[in-house]
């Protein structure tokens, strides 16, 4: 039977299932194969709040959304075109996001009376007509997988576990994905368990073959590669990019990397990744708590390493006092805050930008700390290198903000040439007479980095106010005033790139974003401009200090819209610094902005 092939310019697929069904892996593999094919893409994993909620229940649903296209895209897509639901819970949990007319592929085997009642379906949605306005494919994924593996010496349970690979194979057929990389991946992953390897490979191919032969699907789809700049690419998530950026930055600075960390969602992957990179001389220290983690990082920096600590909002709260110490000691330190929903434990697996004021001001005393925010998953790499630059050149703690959205999301990354990375080397203080630990570099205002082991530089530092130059304890009123102002001036004087404004049409309205809103804002700008609207875009990545031209940019636009995933924290900073009124657009649902809501909010301003 020959099947129709339809060309499409973009598709959004969501894989959803029980947290034990392997949906993240399935999504990851489909993403890698899509990347290899050359589509542009963006992903959005959605983890259940509970690690192992009872099987088949709504809290146990885990999903992975992938948007891929033959052109440049910015987000993981507002609404899926295709939902793959491995059980009734996955269907129920995701139906509200599915537009009418979209495609729904379900694992029919799981739609038993028992499973349906578990999630509150009184009748079977596959049979009661409630899905009439969707294209529904009920496929016995479990039994077909078990059937395909009948020849292998596996228990039923083991065989069933490969059903995600069956689904992956089927979708790979449907969207013409290459299969070599996934086969290679499976072979490496299960090399020690040959039967399980065979099961996964067979299920994957069986899924593909099923797609090709079944009458259930009459059409398959092609999405041509997106035009991309020349170069070598890979798919990259934010947390991985951040970890790599820290390694690269430390290498550029010729410093050993020391990470002190305490596990916390969604930052733990940075600890995991750096723990793997011992061959780079990286030392990771899983401390007893966040205070010890930052303390150890400060100790390592004092000894001449690039001390780093990674955490999320609740961990930042614990680290505050020690960060104040680092401000006083004027030693390099990077604090990575992968933000999540707050306050308190909040929404650990969801995204938010609500730690901004905490990192700016959440310390006792006048305690200025530079703040950087990554804008996309791959930008996490560049901003991590920048954090190393600022921390080492200015001898200061630096906050690097990411959040759950870009930390777990991924996009294609053009791999940088190592030679193109900046030289961040700074000199330690050398043996000298009459050493003054608080004498400053006239340009950067940085004090010397005098590491233990250097003869003649013996000196004492600490959290008590320092006398200018000598660093001795000082309670002198004038000295304290001077030192407070000097520390503030040092941070205010940090060199950061100017804000770039994208405004081809001479717009009156500027959408100003910061951090992870870059993708959604860009997507909205594209839609708005296509419809003839004039809008400008600028994106803040350097928050303390702000880019020097920010005030000038703000003054050019009568209307500035500032979307953020909090109740207006950046707006508060901008209003207070520039006395500029801002049209705040806020949302704290634990999810990134959708393109549609940003477009609507902007149109309201444009038309209002």
């Amino acid at each position, binding site marked *: 039977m020959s099947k129709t092939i339809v060309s499409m310019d973009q598709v959004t697929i969501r894989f959803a299932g029980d947290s034990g069904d392997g949906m993240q892996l399935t999504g990851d593999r489909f993403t890698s194969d899509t*990347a290899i094919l050359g589509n542009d893409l963006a992903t959005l994993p959605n983890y259940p709040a509970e690690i192992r909620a009872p099987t088949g229940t709504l809290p146990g649903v885990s999903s992975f959304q992938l948007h891929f296209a033959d052109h440049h895209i910015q987000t993981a897509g507002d609404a899926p075109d295709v939902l793959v639901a491995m059980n009734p819970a996955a269907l129920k949990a995701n139906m509200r996001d599915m537009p009418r007319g979209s495609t729904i592929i379900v694992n029919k085997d799981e739609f038993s009376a028992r499973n349906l009642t578990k999630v509150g379906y009184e009748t079977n949605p596959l049979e009661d007509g409630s899905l009439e306005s969707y294209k529904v494919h009920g496929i016995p994924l479990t039994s077909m997988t078990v059937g395909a593996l009948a020849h292998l010496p596996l228990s039923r349970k083991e065989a069933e576990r490969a059903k995600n690979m069956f689904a992956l194979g089927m979708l790979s057929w449907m969207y013409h994905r290459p299969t070599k990389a996934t086969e290679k991946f499976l072979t490496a992953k299960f090399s020690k368990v040959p039967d399980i390897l065979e099961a996964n490979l067979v299920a994957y191919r069986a899924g593909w073959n099923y797609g090709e032969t079944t009458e259930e699907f009459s059409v398959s789809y092609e999405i041509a590669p997106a035009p991309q700049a020349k170069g070598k690419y890979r*798919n990259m998530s934010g947390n991985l990019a951040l970890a*790599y950026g820290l390694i690269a930055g430390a290498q550029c600075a010729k410093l050993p990397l020391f990470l002190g960390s305490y596990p916390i969602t969604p930052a733990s992957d940075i600890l995991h990744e750096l723990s793997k990179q011992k061959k780079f001389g990286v030392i990771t*220290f899983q401390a007893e708590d966040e205070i010890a983690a930052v303390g150890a990082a400060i*100790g390592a920096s004092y000894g001449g390493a690039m001390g780093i600590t990674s955490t999320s909002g609740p961990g930042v709260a614990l680290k505050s006092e020690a960060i104040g110490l680092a401000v006083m000691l004027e030693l390099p330190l990077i604090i990575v805050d992968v933000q999540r929903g707050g306050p308190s434990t909040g929404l650990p697996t969801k995204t938010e930008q609500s730690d901004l004021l905490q990192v700016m001001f959440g310390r006792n005393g006048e305690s200025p700390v530079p703040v950087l925010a990554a804008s996309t998953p791959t930008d996490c790499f560049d901003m991590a290198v920048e954090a190393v630059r600022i921390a080492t050149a200015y001898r200061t703690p630096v906050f690097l903000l990411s959040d759950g959205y870009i930390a777990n999301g991924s996009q294609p990354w053009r791999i940088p040439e190592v030679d193109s990375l900046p030289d961040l080397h700074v000199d330690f203080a050398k043996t000298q007479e009459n050493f003054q630990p608080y004498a400053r570099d006239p340009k950067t205002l940085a004090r010397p980095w005098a590491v233990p082991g250097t003869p003649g530089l*013996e000196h004492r530092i*600490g959290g*008590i106010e320092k006398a200018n130059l000598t660093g001795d304890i000082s309670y002198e009123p004038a000295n304290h005033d001077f030192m407070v102002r000097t520390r503030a001036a040092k941070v205010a004087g940090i060199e950061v790139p100017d804000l770039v404004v994208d405004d081809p049409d001479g717009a009156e309205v500027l959408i100003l974003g910061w951090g992870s809103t870059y993708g959604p804002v860009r997507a909205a700008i594209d839609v708005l401009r296509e419809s003839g609207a004039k809008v400008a875009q600028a994106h803040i990545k350097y928050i303390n200090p702000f880019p020097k031209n920010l005030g000038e940019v703000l003054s050019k636009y009568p209307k500035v819209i500032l979307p953020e995933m909090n109740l207006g924290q950046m707006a508060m900073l901008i209003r207070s610094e520039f006395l500029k009124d801002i049209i705040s657009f806020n949302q704290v649902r634990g999810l990134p902005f959708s393109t549609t809501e940003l477009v609507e909010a902007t149109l309201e301003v444009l038309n209002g």
Partner: protein
Amino acid sequence: MAEITLTKKDFTSDQEVRWCPGCGDYSILATMQAFLPELGVPREKIVFISGIGCSSRFPYYLETFGMHSIHGRAPAIASGLTISRPDLTVFVITGDGDALSIGGNHFIHALRRNVDLKIMLFNNRIYGLTKGQYSPTSEAGKITKSTPVGSLDTPFNPVSLGLGAEATFIARTIDSDRKHLTGVLQAATKHKGSALIEIYQNCPIFNDGAFDSIKDGDSREGALLHLIHGEPIKSTTHAVVRKADGDLEMRALSEINEADIVIHDAHRIDPTYAFALSRLSTNDHVLVGVFRDVARPSYGDLVHEQVDGVIAKQGKGDLATLLAGGDSWEIS
């Protein structure tokens, strides 16, 4: 061996010492300044890291590297330093409040990891710097500014606590006994890994005489039972013996046979013996010396062994290879 040419003066900084007159911290400082030349480590390779409290002023007065950090966190900061710089000799200076109250967590975890730190716990059984509140080592019922009708908490025994935290080296000594303190410092600095030194320290302002019962010139020889490896545990009047049921007890010499006195074994791996010793002291009779000194690889050594092992096996990391990953594609 390089000849040691430094003297006490070389380890004395130009800072004016600012403890109250008669504070026990003075004699500990003097002993340390006199001991450091003997350690044979160059000044620049020695680091003192302290928390907050009267005792934590200590680093300012030593001509070495030093950091006066924040309350309770010195073991954490010092851990990061000594793990990344195993070539340094790192001391932690802390108080009973600093180590056992606010910093209790870091204290126990540094010990269990066996991080290469010499932790000197100045135990004056009071919060000195904040002017006299009771501390986690104050005896129950203590009347202080914050406990006008007596404290209700059962105190910590730092030696017992350290043993529970898997410490490999624990000793107790006294501020005013220069010779004993020096001996303990010698043993502690020879030990690889964490060494906890509890120092009974008098605070004449807020808890004067806390240790008078064992410092008094006349009764002193009887009050201090010395823990010396391979020797009987005894003072001139008392000794430690093993009861029929196996438990240890302290008895007057007059009541026992010399032959029944327990011979100290500081190297015993099973910590229950040292723990039993740690429970024997009374107000008038105190065990001093090294309770436990057992060998276990230091945390920093293990960390570097892992890193070196990986590099030996896989070679040094190459950044370009790392960034390229295994799943890349080319657009031309």
